[in-house]
């Protein structure tokens, strides 16, 4: 049955409670840390060799779509009525807004050590100990807006600039790509200072703490952020009817991207599905 992903600011009190309960149970079962490790494992940078699937690559969007579906399925094994809500960071832009309330994700980290002290994922609650981290810290950390060098969340106009691009991705299909929806959304910028982050990347930077590092999945905000990023892919397809995932065919043996990216009809690790098969999700879930 097709289920619905909702705007986190519209969740009822009961929906918030059920989402949190399911997340904590997936964590308790030991499944959650596997998601953290998988994301670390699949972070292959474009200046290193090898196949890139999750980042700096056209399959950034289908990879994270599959990743979200796997988490969602783990949540639904706990509570079949739960789905991942999305955080519209163009609208909910302050530390006081959704999803940072005490009954959902909790708030900013404290200034001394960036430890999240509020909400169900605070260390003191005893249910969210970080085990698969880049550092030895066991508590969840955040640093909204990076106070020592402030940065803002992406604006609606910045997101629109990505959505307006009619081409999915362009050569060389990596972080240096200057045109195309995918990197405008993924957000490897080309300026200096705060211009180096756009859209998706900038949100990771704005939340800070765990969300900035390789183990960003440790912050449950990861999923709400990526559900919104996933929604943009759907919106982009609606806006540009007939536009497709690119590249259509694998790069040739003389291409710098030979065997380093996933073309539209190639199988994408670790799921073995093709990007083409992940373009339409209307038979699995929809966005409200």
């Amino acid at each position: 049955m097709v289920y619905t992903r909702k705007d986190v600011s519209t969740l009822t009190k009961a929906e918030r409670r059920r989402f949190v309960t399911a997340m904590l149970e997936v964590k308790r079962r030991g499944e959650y840390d596997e998601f953290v490790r998988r994301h670390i494992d699949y972070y292959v940078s474009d200046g290193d060799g090898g196949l890139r699937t999750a980042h700096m690559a056209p399959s950034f969007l289908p990879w994270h779509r599959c990743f979200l579906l796997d988490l969602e399925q783990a949540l639904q094994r706990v509570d079949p009525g739960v789905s991942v809500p999305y955080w519209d960071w163009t609208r909910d832009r302050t530390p006081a807004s959704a999803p940072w309330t005490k009954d959902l994700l909790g708030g900013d980290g404290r200034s001394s050590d960036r430890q999240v002290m509020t909400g169900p994922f605070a260390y003191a609650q005893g249910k969210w100990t970080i085990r698969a981290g880049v550092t030895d810290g066991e508590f969840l950390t955040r640093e909204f807006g990076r106070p020592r060098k402030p940065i803002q969340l992406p604006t609606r106009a910045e997101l629109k600039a990505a959505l307006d691009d009619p081409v999915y991705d362009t050569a060389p299909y990596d972080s240096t790509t200057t045109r195309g929806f995918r990197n405008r959304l993924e957000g490897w910028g080309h300026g200096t200072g705060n211009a180096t982050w756009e859209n998706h990347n900038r949100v990771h930077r704005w939340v800070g703490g765990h969300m900035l590092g390789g183990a960003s999945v440790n912050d449950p905000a990861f999923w709400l952020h990526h559900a919104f990023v996933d929604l943009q892919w759907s919106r982009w397809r609606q806006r540009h009817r007939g536009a497709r995932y690119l590249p259509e065919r694998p790069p040739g043996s003389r291409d710098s991207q030979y065997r380093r990216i996933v073309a539209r009809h190639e199988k994408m690790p670790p799921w073995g599905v093709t990007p083409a098969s992940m373009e339409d999700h209307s038979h699995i879930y929809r966005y409200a």
Partner: protein
Amino acid sequence: MFASWMPGGAPRHGRSRVPAGPARRRGTERVAGGLALTRRGAMRGLLVSVVGMALAPVVAASRPLRRRHPRDSSFDEVYRGRHIFGTKSGSDGRAAFTGGAWQVTVDGRPLHLMRRADGGYLSMVDHYESYPTPLAAARAAVDELGPEEQLRDMDDGADGGRGTGTRKSGTEGSGHHHGVHP
């Protein structure tokens, strides 16, 4: 009812764990791991000499512990109370072929760097921005560490996690290239 989103069957939920130790099959990783062990041993000695500085109040400016190597821009300094050390290996044939691999530590613990296509460096601590040099990436990583926070030595497997950087996922397996930075 068990609903699978994937066409044609249930998704794989588990992740095949790469065994510790001998799993590091790839040549570059073996080289990098060997050097890391050597370096870690050396670092213990160095740490004794810098422990006072490491515990000293945060200093705004970094202090070089020794003169930088002019050729490879290796670094060895205290930055905001943290000992950051970086060197580029290059003594074996593979390193000569690939241009060598950077080994960077913060307070003696490995900081995994990756390369970006524009030539920059990303660290595991700061994964969504790249820096022009390993030194800049190391300093940026220190900026993100809390007062009591240390890098987890992902190579020792003590965290119950991994960090060997290899993942076998069938013929299209993707590898995470921690510590391999041609």
